[in-house]
């Protein structure tokens, strides 16, 4: 597995014994630490100052990695994997051993409490393919933190990367510019402001399905700054057009790993004519806000099986398609647009707790 810190463009790199300390932009700090599991778990001890208010922990290991538990400085368990592993409400993907990379943001919601000063302990589990804990499994944990006492207003820095040749398609770049305006309009009432830096990158326009991990994503993200979410705009995803946008994980990391991006395919957003109507552009802006919303920690308020939900108590736990469309159809994170073949309603609303989650994401500065 590739290392996380690699050549990410950190402003300063200070090396200490067994630990890498990273000096970054104001408001965001970070360091990395190497650990190995004993009895299947490893404790990551994090010293939190009075000023730090949120943590983003990214782990890269040899085996499947999952969060076991989080303890606050008083020794209280504030999150345990078993409380969320089989629940029908989703809080974070960190509790599921899905890959050798794991990402956790803490706190997630206001009800999760605040990041009190002192030593926090994050217990990480290494799991083999059969689901058993594995000892002697080594991993690297990257810890980033931010200082944001109010969680009321934040810039979200995004590096938008055009895949090879896509930046030469004027009708695409014009549409993307307009979609960013739509995205900005959606987020502004929640006190969130995407700050998009547009670049090009050496990546095939048929983008990888980032949820399964990709070395191409790792390589492209190494050119992003440490406080940027990477959004790659290509032509298609995974050799076809079934996917219009995919977030690497929920939440996603600000360091470089094989899932450290959101990818977007322009053809699926433009449709068969290949041109962007005003409605296509509006929906593409909603797609950008939706996918980056996943990356910052939001789940769908309800999945399309109508039997699992997010962990936001202010998004109703609806039970069927009609009920869900009526109660949640205008929510930005609803899993499908609400359309009637030729027109769609706007999906630009977020609940108060959904906004709490976005504001607590460590990359919301």
């Amino acid at each position, binding site marked *: 597995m590739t290392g996380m810190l690699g050549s990410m463009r950190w402003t300063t790199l200070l090396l200490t014994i067994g630990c890498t300390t990273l000096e970054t932009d104001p408001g965001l700090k970070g360091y990395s630490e190497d650990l190995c599991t004993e009895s299947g778990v490893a404790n990551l001890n994090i010293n939190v100052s009075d000023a730090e208010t949120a943590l983003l922990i990214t782990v890269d290991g040899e085996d499947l990695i999952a969060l076991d538990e989080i303890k606050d400085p008083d020794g209280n368990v504030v999150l345990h994997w078993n409380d969320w592993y089989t629940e029908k409400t989703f809080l974070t993907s960190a509790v599921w051993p899905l890959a050798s990379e794991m990402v956790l943001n803490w706190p997630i919601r206001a009800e999760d409490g605040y990041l009190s000063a002192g030593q926090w302990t994050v217990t990480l589990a290494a799991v083999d393919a059969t689901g058993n804990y594995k000892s002697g499994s080594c991993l690297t944990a990257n810890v980033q933190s931010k200082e944001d006492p109010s969680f009321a207003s934040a810039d979200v820095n995004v590096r938008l990367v055009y895949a090879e*040749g896509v930046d030469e398609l004027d009708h695409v770049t014009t549409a993307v510019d307009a979609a960013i305006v739509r995205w900005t309009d959606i987020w502004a009432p929640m006190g969130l402001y995407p700050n998009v830096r547009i670049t090009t990158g050496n990546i095939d326009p*048929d983008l990888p399905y980032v949820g399964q991990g990709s070395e191409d994503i790792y390589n492209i993200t190494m050119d992003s700054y440490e406080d940027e979410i990477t959004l790659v705009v290509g*032509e*298609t995803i995974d*050799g*076809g*057009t*079934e*996917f*219009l*946008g*995919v977030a690497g994980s929920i939440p996603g990391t600000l360091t470089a790993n094989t899932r450290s991006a959101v990818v977007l395919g322009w*053809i*699926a*957003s*433009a*449709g*068969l*004519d*290949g*041109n962007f*109507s005003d*409605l*296509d552009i509006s*929906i593409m802006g909603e*797609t950008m806000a*939706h996918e980056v919303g996943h990356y910052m920690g939001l789940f769908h308020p309800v999945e*399309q099986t109508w039997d699992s939900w997010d962990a936001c108590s202010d998004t109703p736990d609806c039970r069927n*398609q*009609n009920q869900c*469309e*009526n109660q949640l*159809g205008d929510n930005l994170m609803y*899993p*499908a*647009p*609400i*359309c*009637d*073949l*030729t*027109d*769609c309603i706007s999906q630009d609303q977020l609940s108060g707790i959904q906004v709490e989650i976005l504001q607590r994401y460590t990359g919301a500065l």
Partner: protein
Amino acid sequence: MTSLLILFSTLAHASEPADPTATDPAPKPSPTQSAVYAALQGRHDPPTCESLNSASPDLANDLIWLMKHANQPAWVGVRAAYCVLTEYADEKASVIDTWVVDPERRGLAILTIGMLDKMPHAHAERIAAKALAGPHAADARKHLTESGDPKLMNLVD
């Protein structure tokens, strides 16, 4: 909400006598077309093309109907085309041939050309030749050159 709208529209359409002189600017989907449309609408995890057979006994034609009439969200038509290309390349060969030469459907042309290396060679070479002679020849040259398939790449030369 959507399903109700479509259902009501469908019922209204079914109950009205046909008027051959009337124009119909907004064709209404059949129940099976509505079902396929709903299945293709989600932002994530689209169904497999094979699984759509349970929603329609005439899936190929329903997909082609959606490609023509379901303009929003944009990816419904795109996903429908993908399923026709992957599941019905033989049955709908003559229809697919038109997809790379329609000047109004550049997105469809790019999608089709991009799928050629996954299609049987007999279809792929025929469609590629049409694409190279059509209004999207520049797109065709670019994608065929990058396809990695020697037979398709040779067509560009």
